[in-house]
């Protein structure tokens, strides 16, 4: 177990120390007094566990492929930017563009997140990103999304109809699953609501279970509700912007 005090440590030095600790064989790292240092966990490929006490800066877990990062509090913008694998668990709220261009792994958030969650998220072969949000998202959730699953549980609101503008704007792949109903005015132009199939549920059940375990949430209560599934209405929403027959 390696403990790093990040108080007043420049982000580059902090990240060098984390990489050094991983390279010298540590598999459990705790970082205390984190105040906004960028890129924590950047590009790490090993299955290490990193505990963060304080508030990690933007682009937490950028490019990483393997570690499990636990944030004991809030986090900022750009979490899991272009991340390929591993897990980020946030026991608080998070900022804008969470899961930006994410291509694999899981991000679990207890509270609310900001705008453009999972923008440009994509999947390919075995790489399949999963993002589960306990609270609500800001507008443009799943914008330009191309693959993977975004689950919005909205656990803390009294209203059963999810209302948040521009859900799935420009989306052309992947699925968004919302607990409860979704106000149809909230949808972006490129998506539609369909019924949730048994196989969809099977696909995400193990992750929901893991989410509930990680964040100490009652799984059965979560599963009692009905879910709404949102997918793209067409797989080429911007077809009309291109001239047919041309290579792009």
């Amino acid at each position: 177990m390696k403990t790093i005090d990040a108080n007043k440590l420049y982000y580059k030095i902090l990240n060098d120390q984390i990489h050094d600790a991983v390279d010298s064989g540590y598999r459990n790292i705790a970082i205390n007094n984190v105040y906004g240092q960028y890129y924590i966990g950047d590009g790490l490929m090993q299955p290490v566990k990193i505990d963060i006490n304080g508030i990690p800066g933007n682009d937490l877990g950028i490019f990483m492929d393997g570690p499990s990062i636990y944030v004991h509090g809030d986090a900022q913008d750009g979490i899991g930017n272009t991340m390929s694998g591993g897990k980020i668990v946030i026991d608080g709220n998070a900022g804008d563009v969470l899961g930006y261009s994410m291509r694999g792994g899981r991000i679990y958030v207890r509270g609310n997140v900001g705008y453009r969650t999972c923008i440009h998220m994509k999947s390919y072969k075995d790489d399949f990103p999963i993002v589960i949000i306990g609270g609500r998202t800001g507008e443009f959730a799943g914008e330009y999304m191309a693959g993977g699953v975004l689950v919005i549980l909205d656990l803390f609101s009294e209203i059963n109809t999810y209302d948040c503008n521009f859900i799935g704007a420009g989306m052309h792949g992947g699925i968004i699953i919302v607990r409860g109903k979704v106000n149809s005015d909230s949808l972006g132009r490129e998506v539609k609501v369909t019924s949730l199939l048994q196989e969809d549920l099977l696909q995400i059940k193990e992750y929901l279970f893991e989410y509930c375990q990680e964040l100490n949430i009652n799984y059965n209560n979560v599963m009692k509700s009905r879910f709404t599934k949102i997918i793209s209405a067409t797989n080429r929403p911007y077809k009309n912007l291109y001239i047919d027959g041309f290579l792009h």
Partner: protein
Amino acid sequence: MFINVSNNLPRDISGCGISGFINTNGRRSSGRACVDSICMMRDRGNGLGAGFAVYGAYPEFRNYYAIHIIYQDNKAREETEEYLSTKLSIVQRGGIPTKKTKNIQSRPLFFVYFGKPRAQSDVAEIDEFREDQEDEFIVRLAMKINENIKGAYVISSGKNLGVFKGIGFPEDIAEMFMIDDYKGYCWIAHNRYPTNTPGWWGGAHPFSVLDWSVVHNGEISSYGINKRYLEMFKYNLNLKTDTEVISYLLDLLVRRHGLSLKEAALAFAPPFWTQIEKMNTDQKNKIEKIRRIYGSAMLNGPFAILVGFKGGLMGLSDRIKLRPLVVGQKGDTTYMASEESAIVGVVKELDRIWSPNAGEPVIAKLKPAVSARLFGKSNKTVRV
């Protein structure tokens, strides 16, 4: 706040950083918290601009306009002072205190003048500078200096307000102006990463006119439209940076046209027509009116701004939240910044911390009794 920082960054993080706070009971505190907060986001800037605005900086001269001017040389100073002496009754003047700072090699001259408009001597002048319209007088005066005197720029012109800014990282600018020695009930700060306008002393933020001061993260794509619109109302834009339009638009919409601050925010970041369609008739009429009349005051492009005004502090982001803004509350103090870490890094155990929605103004106002004490009962503050 971070130490041992190398300037040899492997990656420019950029983005501009903004931070500010207000104590709604008017309790003044040193600039330390504000400096620490903006320095926690040091990498959001690149050393080409930083600055601070302090409300409550000059209590002993609170009934006089505090005109902060930067001069390129003594010739500009002499010319400006000669002009000022015909326009203002100056009760106190002097160089703004600075100290030698290792990282700041060259700098202009900084002066402050405390004064009030003085009676004009001939009819033509009276026509232009009406002594009884004090605020308007001061705005025109600032415009005239910025436009006509080479190498002289009015940096701030409010009462009990001082703006200190220049080229450097925030800690350098804070050290040079000895920001720790000032006390204010409201502070705003900026760390600049200029993208499409030059990094120069007058182009650093905050931008200020009268009691307005603005720090901005983002870029105003509508600058050309906003500029031409402002020019119709005799604002001259000479500071070579998009943010300048925001301070003048606030002055025009709120002080001159009597809009409330929230209405001005609606003009800056109006809802989409599709959203307006869904509103009730009253709301719809109001917003349609604002969109029609103030279409040229709309700020297009990404922005998060903090606005210091007479009696308060406002935070606002663009209508699709292309720039970050976080608000924290502890007791009678409200904090606003680009990053949550810049708030929790300087104040422990906040009562509440959240990110406001896109285009939703967050306004913290001095309590009425405090306002009355600071500005006098007859002196009206901004309608929110």
